[in-house]
């Protein structure tokens, strides 16, 4: 555990001494800021419209503002995650520092966990930025905080799963760009797999749709903690980290 912390601190440090973390955080803040402004504007417009029509049904801020925004975060995350994970192992392999890690009295899994947790922490940092926007909603409205908390949990789980896959891909190459591009491809594929369910209902279509990371986020966005979705994300995290461990081990046999 102590060693995990040593690696974790080192990784977080290198995110924040290089421009990587700042660029990612700034990009995310701008994109999410736009989504927020846009969604809020639409929400207010719809509210006025329904009042003018004389409808008495009040609008639900959780359902009609927070839920779509959470889905937006989840999709933006898919694009930023490759940039978080691409250097994790590829850079160590390129510069030869991997030899230091591998010849130190520290287990592979400690290295992997430290790196993955630091990536997850950077992602959590992005979520903190979104919390600033949501703070305004709480200041001027009365949304229920529980669905929002579950939504955040879902975002963390989804990111954890994709980050684990990205970490694995980063162990396969010395080249950051290749690692980034391959991770981006994997993320995108895991997103669009869900589209097949739009017109197909056969078994294979259901299997494909089940494998999509977006499918499993829907319940979290609604504020539901569904066991099957929780288990899905946790399994993907385990799978990704397991593959990373195997890949790191094979590095010794092949190099």
């Amino acid at each position: 555990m102590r060693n995990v912390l040593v690696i974790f601190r080192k990784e977080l440090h290198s995110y924040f001494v290089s421009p990587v973390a700042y660029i990612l955080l700034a990009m995310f803040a701008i994109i999410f800021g736009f989504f927020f402004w846009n969604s809020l504007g639409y929400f207010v417009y719809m509210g006025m419209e329904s009042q003018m029509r004389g409808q008495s049904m009040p609008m639900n801020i959780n359902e009609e503002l927070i839920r779509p925004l959470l889905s937006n975060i989840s999709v933006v995350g898919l694009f930023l995650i490759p940039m978080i994970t691409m250097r994790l192992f590829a850079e160590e392999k390129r510069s030869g520092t991997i030899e230091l890690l591998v010849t130190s009295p520290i287990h592979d899994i400690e290295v992997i966990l430290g790196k993955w947790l630091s990536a997850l922490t950077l992602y959590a940092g992005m979520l903190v930025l979104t919390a600033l926007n949501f703070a305004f909603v709480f200041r001027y409205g009365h949304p229920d905080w529980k669905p929002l908390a579950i939504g955040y949990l879902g975002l963390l789980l989804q990111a954890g799963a994709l980050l684990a896959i990205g970490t694995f891909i980063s162990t396969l190459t010395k080249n950051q760009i290749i690692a980034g591009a391959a991770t981006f491809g994997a993320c995108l594929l895991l997103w669009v797999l869900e589209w097949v369910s739009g017109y197909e209902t056969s078994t294979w279509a259901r299997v494909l749709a089940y494998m999509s990371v977006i499918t499993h986020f829907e319940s979290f966005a609604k504020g539901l903690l569904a066991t099957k979705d929780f288990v899905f994300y946790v399994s993907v995290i385990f799978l990704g980290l397991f593959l990373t461990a195997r890949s790191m081990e094979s590095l010794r046999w092949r190099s």
Partner: protein
Amino acid sequence: MITVTDITKRYARHTAVDHVSFEVQKGQIVGFLGPNGAGKTTTMRMLTCFMPPTSGSAMVAGFDVLEQPFEVKKRIGYLPETPPLYPEMRTAEYLTFVGRLKGLSGQELDKRVHYVLDRCAVADVKDKLLGKLSKGYRQRVGLAQAIIHNPDVLILDEPTSGLDPKQINETRDLIKSLAGDHTIILSTHILPEVEQTCQSVLIINKGKLVAKDSVANLQNRARGAESLLVEIGARSGDVDTATVQSRLEKISGVTRVVFKETQQKWSTFEIESHADGFVRGDLARAIVESGWDLNELRPTAVSLEEIFLQLTGEPLPPEEAVVTGAD
């Protein structure tokens, strides 16, 4: 301190290290000599538990690299061919990180970081980014990193490659001063480096160990004899080289006298003899008694280059021509 028994590393298409066995005593500096691609790096990587051997075993500081890699890693300091530096870290910060990796903490960690900063003469760059350091500094930080946890064994892969002559000397002196506390294996393809730094030498070629001996023994073995250079002159006129040759050949122990050249009034001869210890004295006496002047008498050291030639039957390949198999 290090015992390697019949270690072999096989890749899909070639054998990088082929049944190599050797031992290193505590406190020694051993040079691992061979052309690029001979299997030096691979052997070192197996000793550091970076990769497991295909067959055979290696014991480092009393622990088997396959069975107790953790114990071995705690007792080994390793400087790979390119120092494993993170360009975005500062020197002291980096050494602290490596110290933590090796299991140090608290006051002991601070103490060791300060110690190695001084020991390796990198204290003046302790707040500089590693990415901005010159090659000599990078190499020294690499050494500092290797000794931070005071390991029993130091494994240095080409510690002087890419440095300028002044930096090479500084690095060599530093390595020599580390012996005694640490047992050191260093690899190189530069021959004088071994002669200057190491007590014994392991010569490896195409994955096979072709010689293991002390540097002095190896030099003797190459000729099985001593080779001397003598400069002789006469007070008036030139010396008659034929007379000198016949006179010196009569001395017992001398096997061959070869005239080399005459410059101004001094004539140079190369003399081969059995290394029995009396030849030099007899030579000097004979020359002076014959009325000649003795200007110089010195043994010519056989370079490892010649030894390498004799042992492997081929000259050291030029650096660029060889593809490094280990990378």
